[in-house]
């Protein structure tokens, strides 16, 4: 059962993506650790950390694409799950500092000593153990998403209204985490990390390992997303996206499907956050900012909604552009980002990957019909989408599937 479930995830497109990802996971750390510094192929450590950050963003974008691209839930609050995963990891890293902090308290993190707290709050218990923190990285965002989704989907909140309350959710968490008495370091958040699993967090080898871990997490989550979207459940999700009430009249309990995919997606966002924090060295309430969540949606839209690979591509490209812009022309970055979103919406509504694969299918179709016309070759019977290939709206079929493209949430 499990093997057929995972086997379904694989095809040429997934193979190419995973092979490229594997190459990146191997070559970047190798270029950093094995190639001498004066070689042109040397990858500097700052670049490893930067690209590792991109990979965690790519995972976050993947999680947004799963709910938005396939189920039509436009989440404008996914950064909340990302930040919660990040905080869980940050709490573990804080506990690892031990007595090396400024105040040298073996148990309490510096900010608690500063606030004159005399004992660790109960919710910090257990975070000195990595397995516990790792569990919380998925469970806390998952639980929040489950409870939030339970109420929202059962009450049939959809479209813009749902998007607005996801914004409210992340904004509420932003305000809460700003408060010092929440016990998460307030405004400053958690920082000054020393080591992770006993390894120095600043060391090149640790950075390379974190980079590889981010890549592997991205690959695994991609396979899971792919298996989900190509299963019958994936077809139901697309059905919900396109005609929610019709799906209900077929007997599917739409709220259960939404809740399932929403919770999985939040857990993936949590993992992304947990890998992000040790690579950037800080987590603070700024990560909950509503604008962050909106930016993630832009990455997905640029790359191509409902394509999974597109989300990854979009996240990496936009963030690369951001890094470059903020260094060269820091003032105009936000204008460029806004302009990019407008341009993509107007001229590339399917995003980069969606447009390319549509063009590819059209080209193939034209070749087949041309050879059929000239009397050679086989007639154009081979369909791009066979019944055995389960729902993947990535390959928009032949002809003009005008209304079949992913619709906005409302």
């Amino acid at each position, binding site marked *: 059962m499990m093997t057929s479930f995972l086997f379904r995830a694989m095809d040429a497109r997934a193979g190419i993506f995973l092979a490229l990802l594997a190459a990146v996971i191997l070559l970047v750390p190798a270029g950093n650790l094995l190639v001498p510094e004066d070689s042109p192929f040397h990858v500097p450590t700052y670049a490893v950390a930067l690209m590792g950050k991109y990979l965690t963003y790519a995972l976050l974008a993947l999680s947004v694409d799963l709910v938005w691209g396939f189920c039509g839930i436009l989440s404008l609050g996914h950064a909340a799950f990302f930040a919660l995963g990040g905080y869980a990891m940050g709490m573990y890293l804080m506990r690892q500092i031990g007595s090396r902090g400024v105040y040298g308290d073996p148990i309490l993190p510096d900010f608690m000593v500063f606030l004159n707290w005399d004992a660790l709050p109960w919710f910090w218990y257990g975070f000195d153990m990595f397995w516990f923190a790792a569990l919380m990285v998925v469970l806390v965002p998952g639980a929040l998403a489950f409870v939030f989704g339970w109420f929202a989907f059962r009450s049939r909140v959809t479209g813009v209204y749902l998007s607005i309350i996801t914004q409210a959710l992340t904004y509420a968490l932003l305000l809460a985490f700003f408060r010092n008495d929440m016990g998460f370091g307030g405004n400053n958040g958690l920082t000054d990390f020393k080591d992770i699993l006993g390894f120095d967090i600043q060391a090149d080898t640790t950075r390379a390992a974190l980079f590889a871990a981010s890549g592997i997490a991205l690959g695994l989550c991609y396979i899971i997303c792919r298996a989900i979207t190509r299963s*019958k459940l994936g077809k139901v999700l697309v059905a919900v996206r396109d005609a929610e009430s019709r799906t209900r009249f077929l007997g599917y309990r739409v709220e259960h499907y939404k809740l399932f995919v929403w919770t999985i997606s939040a857990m993936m966002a949590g993992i992304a956050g947990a890998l992000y924090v040790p690579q950037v060295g800080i987590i603070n309430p700024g990560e909950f900012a509503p604008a962050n969540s909106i930016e993630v949606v832009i990455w997905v839209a640029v790359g191509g909604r409902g394509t999974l690979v597109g989300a990854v591509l979009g996240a990496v490209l936009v963030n690369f552009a951001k890094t470059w812009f903020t260094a060269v022309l820091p003032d105009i970055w936000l204008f460029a980002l806004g302009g990019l979103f407008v341009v993509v919406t107007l001229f590339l509504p399917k995003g980069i990957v969606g447009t390319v694969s549509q063009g590819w299918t059209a080209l193939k179709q034209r070749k087949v019909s041309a050879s059929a016309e000239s009397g050679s070759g086989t007639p154009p019977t081979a369909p791009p989408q066979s*019944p055995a290939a389960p729902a993947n709206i990535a390959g928009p079929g032949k*002809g003009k599937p005008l209304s*079949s493209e992913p619709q906005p949430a409302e």
Partner: protein
Amino acid sequence: MARSTSQLYLDGVSVSFDGFKAINDLSLTIDPGEMRAIIGPNGAGKTTMMDIITGKTRPDTGEVFFNGVIDLTGEDEASIAELGIGRKFQKPTVFESHTVWDNLELSLKAPRGPFATLFHVITSAEKKRIEELLELIRLNEKRDELAANLSHGQKQWLEIGMLLAQDPKLLLVDEPAAGMTDAETAETAELLKEIAKDHSVVVVEHDMDFVRSLGVKVTVLHEGSVLAEGSLDHVSADERVVEVYLGR
């Protein structure tokens, strides 16, 4: 009226929207295996009646029973569909970004939970059933076509196929012939008659020729309640019916 032996039983059902009585003390009984045509002018409450039966709208008062014992007013859309009531909408509603095959596969009677569908592997029995349905609705050639690319009439047929795939006991069919050519309309009537051999069917239709070709008992709705019931000739002779509907 005998509730216990009925397939579908509505008694004294009323519902109003903002003071407007869409359904007013409606009573209707469909026997098992019966095909019934429902006609009535616009705003007579035909679609609202379907909404009530399928759980989309809750009635203010009145009883709705399925199979004589199951109270439908306490169930939601998904569980009513699971009980065996299938619905075809007035405007053909198919999943446009799925292929014809996938549309049918999604509709097939099978466990509907997320975990059941996540690990679902299509069986040969299911494939065979889909093949049969494709044959029946004459979309065999179009099986790999996206539903969005079908013509209006083909979408109507696909939706009827999806309805059959659910294997319901009772089919609610809202204006199946709307927007069809005369030839398609005649074929649709034949198809419905075929279906009615082993299902209960309720057809809402405007097209009088279509209703006549079905040759079944007719219920006339007007202002949310039953105005007349009987054969088409019988109701056509009714003066009140002529006044509200036929005497255009």
